[in-house]
């Protein structure tokens, strides 16, 4: 009996808590992705690169002496104009050329290649390890958990709640959802659809950047850091239902828990295969995901 | 004589709205039957139920006395039914000839599917004939996207004829056409009715009255009335629901 208690306390619980930190992080990346898909019908293949851009921007600015907590607010704001420019001058050009899903997917795929190489040119291919802003560990139920991970879980929950509040409870969110549901109708009601689109894309990019800043102290910073992460985030978006915020939260947290626990039971190396298996099965039988879309829910 | 096409109690609802509600009617062979009714009466939904685009919640569709309820569009096309669309629905990146070729190539035996598209054979002859008949000779190699609206509408009809159907369903064939084009299309439809059974959706009441052998009036998903054009016109219920407004 004590063995089981020890297992729960010292192995399973920390593993699940680490899984939760990862889950929150994935949800943050997935949020931007799901908003962009739900509203613009665009699979943003460069999302992982914007996540890396956020991390590197924080890295560069902190070298200039800026405080970490300032960067947490500043970096997403800096990414907003980038998002607006990308949407206005690149993505918008291929909205109406044939198959929008395919053309925008391809365009953002090309953009990802470019951004990745720009990061390599500026920062070099090496891995950076920023110092954690909250060193030390906190004891919970007799187990020590790095303090920053706990803070990350807390901050993550606040950000997710704030995003959900904006999208589902404000006038701005209502406009965004209206534009997503019926573009022409929204335009005739006076919604400036063009700006809503740019704004939504920029918002999504800013969220990716925010995730980059938050996660940099835990996972290291390198130009291709978005690759692995984005695969998980895409899976979360699909399983949760593309465009659904609650779907992304539920799927993000449960899938990372599945991964964390399966790592204990089977082996950590099978985590990815299991996650992608879930994605394929969901796509086969319920391609719209577990939850609906932003405008349609 | 079995009617070419018959529906019995055809129904479907979207959400709570009964888009088509227990509609029964029949179309006589080689006659023109027209479905009319105000916007939202369920005409196009009725067409979708008959042509396999939608599966009816209840009711049956019979072609030549054979029950084809629940057949998909491809199977129905194979049973001799062809339809056009209210919103032009063609292969815009292909030429007129290629569009017609696609529609006609079911005429050739299946084995031909594995040999290069030929210049000879029943399908090729049919394409030549339709290009001639619909006046596309000068534009046979134009992309459909480059055609005028009227030409695209005419090609819609030609596409339906390419497979030599027994039943031709035309959803507002004259939609958006100029006056001259409309008259020409009406002449064309009349000439067709010697070879095929025509089921038509049309808004132009003058055209309906002069063209149709039989008229079915729909209102709010239900069949309000049917009969010869003159009968329908004098039906008080129809006048109240339909002609009364315009």
């Amino acid at each position: 009996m004590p063995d089981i208690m020890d297992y729960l306390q010292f192995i399973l619980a920390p593993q699940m808590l680490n899984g939760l930190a990862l889950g929150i992080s994935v949800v943050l990346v997935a949020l931007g992705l799901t908003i962009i898909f739900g509203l613009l019908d665009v699979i943003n293949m460069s999302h992982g690169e914007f996540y890396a851009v956020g991390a590197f921007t924080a890295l560069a600015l902190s070298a200039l002496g800026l405080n970490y907590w300032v960067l947490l607010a500043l970096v997403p704001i800096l990414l907003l104009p980038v998002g607006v420019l990308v949407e206005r001058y690149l993505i918008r050009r291929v909205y109406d050329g044939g198959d929008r899903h395919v053309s925008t997917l391809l365009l953002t795929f090309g953009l990802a290649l470019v951004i990745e190489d720009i990061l390599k040119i500026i920062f070099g291919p090496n891995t950076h390890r920023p110092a954690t802003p909250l060193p030390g560990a906190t004891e919970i139920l007799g187990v020590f958990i790095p303090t920053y991970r706990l803070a990350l879980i807390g901050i993550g929950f606040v950000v997710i709640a704030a995003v959900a509040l904006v999208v589902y409870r404000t006038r701005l969110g209502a406009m965004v959802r209206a534009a997503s549901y019926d573009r022409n109708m929204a335009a005739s009601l006076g919604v400036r659809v063009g700006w809503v689109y740019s704004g939504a894309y920029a918002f999504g990019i800013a969220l990716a950047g925010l995730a980059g800043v938050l996660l940099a102290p835990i996972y290291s910073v390198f130009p291709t850091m978005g690759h692995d992460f984005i695969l998980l985030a895409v899976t979360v978006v699909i399983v949760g239902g593309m465009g659904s915020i609650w779907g992304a939260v539920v799927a993000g947290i449960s899938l990372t828990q599945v991964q964390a626990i399966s790592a204990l039971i089977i082996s950590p190396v099978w985590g990815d295969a299991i996650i992608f298996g879930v994605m394929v099965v969901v796509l086969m039988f319920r391609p719209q995901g577990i939850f609906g879309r932003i405008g349609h829910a | 004589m079995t009617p070419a096409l018959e529906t019995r109690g055809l129904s479907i609802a979207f959400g709570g709205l009964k888009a088509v509600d227990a509609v029964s009617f029949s179309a006589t062979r080689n006659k023109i039957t027209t479905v009319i009714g105000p916007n939202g009466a369920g005409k196009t939904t009725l067409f979708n139920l008959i042509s396999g685009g939608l599966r009816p919640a209840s009711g049956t569709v019979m072609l030549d006395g054979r029950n084809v309820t629940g057949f998909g569009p491809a199977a129905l096309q194979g049973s001799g039914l062809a339809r056009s669309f209210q919103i032009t629905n063609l292969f815009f990146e292909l030429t007129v000839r290629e569009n017609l070729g696609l529609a006609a190539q079911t005429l050739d035996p299946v084995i031909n599917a594995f040999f290069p598209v030929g210049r000879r054979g029943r399908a090729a002859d049919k394409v030549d004939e339709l290009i001639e008949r619909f006046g596309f000779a000068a534009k046979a190699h134009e992309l459909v996207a480059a055609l005028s609206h009227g030409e695209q509408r005419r090609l819609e009809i030609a596409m339906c004829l390419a497979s030599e159907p027994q039943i031709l369903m035309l959803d507002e064939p004259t939609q958006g056409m100029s006056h001259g084009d409309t008259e020409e299309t009406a002449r064309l439809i009349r000439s067709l009715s010697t070879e095929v059974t025509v089921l038509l959706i049309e808004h132009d009441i003058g055209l309906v009255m002069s063209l149709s052998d039989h008229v079915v009036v729909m209102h709010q998903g239900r069949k309000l009335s049917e009969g010869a054009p003159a009968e329908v016109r004098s039906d008080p219920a129809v006048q109240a629901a339909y002609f009364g407004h315009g």
Partner: protein
Amino acid sequence: MLDRLDISLRANHVLFVILFTAAFVFGVMASMTGDRFYLRLATEALILSGLALSIDILLGFTGLLSLGQALFFGVGAYVSALVLREVPSFWLALGAASGASLVAGVVGGLIANRVRGVYFALITFGMAQIVAKIIYNTRSLGASDGLIGIPVVEIPLGFVTLSAGNPLEFFLVVLGGITLIYAGMSYVLSSPFGRVMIALKANEKRVPYLGYSTWAPRMVAYVLAAVIAGTVGGLYPMLRGFVSPELMFFSASGDALIMVIIGGSGTLVGAIWGAILLVAFKSVVGSWTEHHLIIVGLMFMAAVLFMKRGLIGLVKPMIERRLVRIEAAREMRKEGKAP
């Protein structure tokens, strides 16, 4: 007069003949100067061009974006490698690679063709990731190291026997293989069945009302593409002497997609040109800077934004106009009205 699609296919043939001739001349000249490196590189480019071509069958003609085509390339490569380690027979290995990719294509097609559009793209991506991860973690398949020690094979062609160890001979074998694949696919696309594939891309919703199943031609296109990718994948271990899980990773599928888009989708020959250009570009630019990715990315975006038919699209319309004139002149002569 010919249909536009026929003219388009003929223009592709012209571009293919140019490529074939250039490749042949290159091969002979490289061999005369005693080069091995560039012949090997060119052979690899041709093998990858088969993978790119299989993506173009789906994207350029049937309208399906596959983000996991390297899955079938990898299946072919691994099966070929496994066979070669037991029995060093060229035809057995190639046959096994084709057969395995046929089976994988049918299974993958049944899964992926349940959905459309962006969901199709993501499901193909997911399938490739799963299989890549399984191989990566399977000891008996060499795990992350892959399979090494694949022997050099003899290639009996009936009238002559060539060796995969001879750079020129293997280059010519692969060139011949790509020519067969190109010719075979051109034939399929010129048939009524090919027209239905093209119709699916142009306007899928209309197709069933013309009496065709939409599922069957999509499925056939998918399986054809899988077999082509698997067959050229079977050639890979003969060239390199090893296979590794990286062959199935997203970067491999992504590279092949770049070849198609930059070369020109919907042309078959564009994929082949694209593969050769990308491999050549990476080798030339890669020799003086690591940062070729930014240029590739910019070219890719430019192709998506401005050149829907890729680099091929810059010359193909000229060839088509020329062909139309030639054809018109011929018809005039036939009707006895000599110009």
